[in-house]
């Protein structure tokens, strides 16, 4: 009896020790843990339908939450507004002002009653609602696209709001920076460089809005993505009912000439006396398409320079020098020209030192090979962010529409990580030399000229002065 109990106790004790072991294993804290086996990534293609009027419908079924979201995108490409600068955005706003049969108040009431979101803009629309209200919400979006009210009263209201809004941004260094960057880089007549002003908005009429609507709001080149608690066949039936009968002009992309980079690297300075930080953008134009062989090495090269919080710019300008809250870069890839842009908001006193560091880091990308470790880390980041992105059910629809819009091979995303992995340190060097155009940069600085000019002059680059609308200024105000 006694013996048996003892035995039992020992067994229990042994069991307890084993349990303990399972609960807390000895680990070596001094080393980074090894990862588990890589998860298998599954990319579930959306169901794609093509409507006779030109709309491509992409449906991603996901029943985890009782909601459905629709996004409509018209691929008009960049559109030149010219003298009518600001008309497209105003036209988009006008689509939210009710329909021919439903004044704005009734329309808004109908949307809000569902607890839904419905909004329109010049390149499409958005509708999101609980599953049981989605059909109603989608119909409201469709009605607003096809049959906007376009009343003079709404137009006058939005125009006055637009003018007030412009005024509200007039002293905002970030807003000024965004405007002059594009204007100086692309040129003020380029669709990406032109911008609205008080004068251009004042001149707009309701007829201008109607004209641009007639030209650009159309089923042609339209991509409609529906994601969520809905079956593809149901989505197709709904879209066919609401947007199937819709007709509109056939869109073709504008032919836009390339803009030049400066002959020699220059500083372009815009004075905003109230600024406590300088907005610095180091930019040049690039011609890079997503389908190019250079695309994947360009992703990696940019990431190593300034894609994240452990890239060179962040580590140097923030962590090493403490000049800024963050420094980053981006390298665009699009059907048309886009930008290489390295940027930071830097306190006045360190503006010139930050410019010097930007130049040094760009130069280093072009003259020295990155390390194998940097390359491996960048590859791992892309692999991880690709996997993390799949948490968003709409991601696979974005993949599919990107393939269609950019004319990419069908397996572009399925072989994405293989292509990322194939990038070499020599590729990165070549890409930096080709796309980070050290000798033809614009260093565009928006800040308090009185405080930053003396430092900038010491860098020894030519300095051009501009006003807040990218007009050249001959006599710098703070040169005294």
């Amino acid at each position, binding site marked *: 009896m006694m013996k048996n109990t003892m035995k039992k106790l020992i067994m229990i004790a042994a069991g307890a020790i084993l349990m303990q072991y399972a*609960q*807390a*294993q*000895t680990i070596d*804290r001094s*080393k*980074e*843990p090894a*990862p588990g086996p*890589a998860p*298998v*990534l*599954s990319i579930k293609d959306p169901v794609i339908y093509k409507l006779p009027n030109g709309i491509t419908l992409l449906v991603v*079924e996901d029943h*985890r*939450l*009782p*909601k459905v979201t629709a996004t409509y995108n018209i691929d008009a490409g960049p559109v030149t507004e010219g003298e009518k600068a600001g008309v497209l955005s105003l036209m988009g706003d006008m689509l939210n002002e009710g329909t021919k049969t439903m004044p704005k*108040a009734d329309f*808004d*009431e109908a*949307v*809000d*009653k569902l*607890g839904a979101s419905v909004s329109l803009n010049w390149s499409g629309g958005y509708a999101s*609602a*609980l599953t049981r209200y989605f059909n109603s919400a989608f119909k409201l979006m469709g009605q607003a696209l096809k049959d906007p009210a376009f009343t003079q009263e709404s137009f006058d209201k939005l125009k*006055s*709001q637009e003018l*007030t*809004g412009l*005024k*509200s941004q007039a002293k*905002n260094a*970030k807003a000024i920076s965004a405007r002059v960057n594009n204007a100086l880089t692309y040129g003020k007549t380029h669709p990406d460089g032109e911008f609205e002003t008080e004068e251009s908005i004042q001149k707009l009429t309701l007829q201008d809005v109607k004209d641009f609507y007639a030209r650009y709001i159309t089923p042609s080149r339209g991509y409609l993505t529906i994601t969520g608690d809905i*079956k593809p066949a149901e989505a197709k039936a709904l879209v066919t009912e609401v947007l199937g009968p819709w007709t509109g002009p056939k869109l073709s992309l504008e032919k836009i000439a390339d803009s030049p980079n400066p002959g020699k690297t220059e500083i372009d300075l815009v004075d905003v006396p*109230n600024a*406590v*930080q300088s907005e610095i953008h180091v930019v040049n134009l690039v011609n890079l398409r997503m389908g190019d062989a250079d695309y994947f090495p360009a992703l990696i090269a940019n990431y190593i320079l300034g894609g*994240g*919080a*452990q890239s060179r710019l962040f580590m140097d300008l*923030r*962590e090493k020098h*403490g*000049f*800024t809250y963050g420094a980053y870069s981006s390298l665009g890839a699009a059907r048309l020209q886009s930008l290489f842009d390295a940027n930071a*908001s830097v*306190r006045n006193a360190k503006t010139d030192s930050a410019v010097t560091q930007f130049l040094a880091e760009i130069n280093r990308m072009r003259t020295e090979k990155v390390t194998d470790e940097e390359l*491996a*880390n960048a590859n*791992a*980041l892309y*692999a*991880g*962010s690709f*996997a*993390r992105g*799949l*948490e968003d059910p709409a991601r696979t629809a974005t993949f599919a529409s990107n393939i269609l819009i950019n004319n990419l091979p069908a397996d572009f995303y399925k072989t994405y990580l293989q292509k990322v992995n194939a990038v070499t340190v020599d590729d990165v060097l070549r890409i930096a030399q080709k796309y980070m155009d050290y000798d033809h940069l614009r260093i565009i600085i928006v800040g308090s000229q009185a405080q930053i000019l003396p430092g900038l002059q010491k860098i020894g680059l030519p300095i051009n002065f501009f006003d807040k609308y990218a007009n050249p200024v001959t006599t710098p105000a703070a040169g005294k």
Partner: protein
Amino acid sequence: MQTVKNVFFALTAVAGISFSAQAQKVEFTEYDLPNGLHVILHTDHHAPVVAVSVMYHVGSKNEVPGRTGFAHFFEHLLFEGSENIKRGEFMKIVSANGGSNNANTTQDRTFYFEVFPSNYLETGLWLESERMMHPVINEIGVQRQDEVVKEEKRQSFDNRPYGNFINTVEKDLFTVHPYHNSVIGEMKDIDAAKLEEFKAFFKQYYVPNNAVLTIAGDIDAAKTKALIASYFGPIPGGPPVVYHKVEEPPMAKPIVDTFYDANTQIPLVAVAYRTSGHDSRDARIMQMISNLLSSGGSSRLYKKMVDDKKEALQVLAFNSTLEDYGMYIIGALPNGGTSNETLLKDIDEEVVKLQTDLISPEDYEKLENQMENNYVNANSRQLGIAENLANGYTFYHKDTNELNEELAIYKSITREDIRDAARKYLDANKRLTLYYLPGKAKAK
């Protein structure tokens, strides 16, 4: 490098699974380690992603006078490295393993997180346990982050239009409660602090018994528990964290304040009231009032002031809830030449209407639908689920299940409750009127 394989599911295989639309409960398990660390686990295998997060129950309200900004400063300092992670390596390890990470600080808590591909769960646990167990707090880290935080303050507040609005409201609504101070704090306080003070602050607040570890995503719960025991078990617990809420005396008379912001050209005029904390039913009611006033084109203030009278560029009404109190803020930006007084008068009319008349059954139905819609959207990502679970435990009397109960609370709120809450909190004699004006402050 990871091997990546693409697997294509037949669509029909997925279409067969259909969840009941209403049964959208977030499942979880929770327990305490012997050192007091509270652990919450949520399993979801839909995507190969895991969120690892730690919520420390420390924010700017735990700071002592003359040492503001400490909690936020630690948000930066605790990325500087640990005994086993060299300075500058923390974020590099995250990205080199395909993860993303960040942290944020409020008046009440600090939240650190990583999101990784799910096979890097252990890396996330290692990083967060190193941070809790033995971070390196030294002069070089303090100096560097001191400069970075000053840049953050310039970028996020001093160079941004309306950047100092909320800080001004807090300063005026709270006189003795530490909510008076901004989260980012006074730069001179960090400058003056000695290294020993930072170390003491860490010892006091960044202990397992003052933290919640929440893991959400593609995990095996049993294996995860074992790993958590290994990484977090050896961290010693600390003395209980004691916090005494400072009672803010009722406002004796209305306050009027003016703030000048050189980055703006359009005024922002607002009224602000002190309300109850997170965990009260009243906080939910005030949320419904916000929707009624300013959410959507048919909301009362928007329709009246932006659409009908066209006198406002923008209206806002929101309940900023904190642990001890809340702030209810209603404001507008004028369109064209509308005067601030006109805007205030229109706001007041709507407040009085809420206090006098019951909202219509149609408006009530609208609110219910909006609340349900918000609820469905609140838990769509693993990181969001992790934070919501940790919030429940930290701020709702250890009720981790709070996120599942929220909708039922909203459904229990009546039209009378809405009227009564408007009467109780939106008292014209106990409020701040803030004129947030363009330009430079004149010498007083």
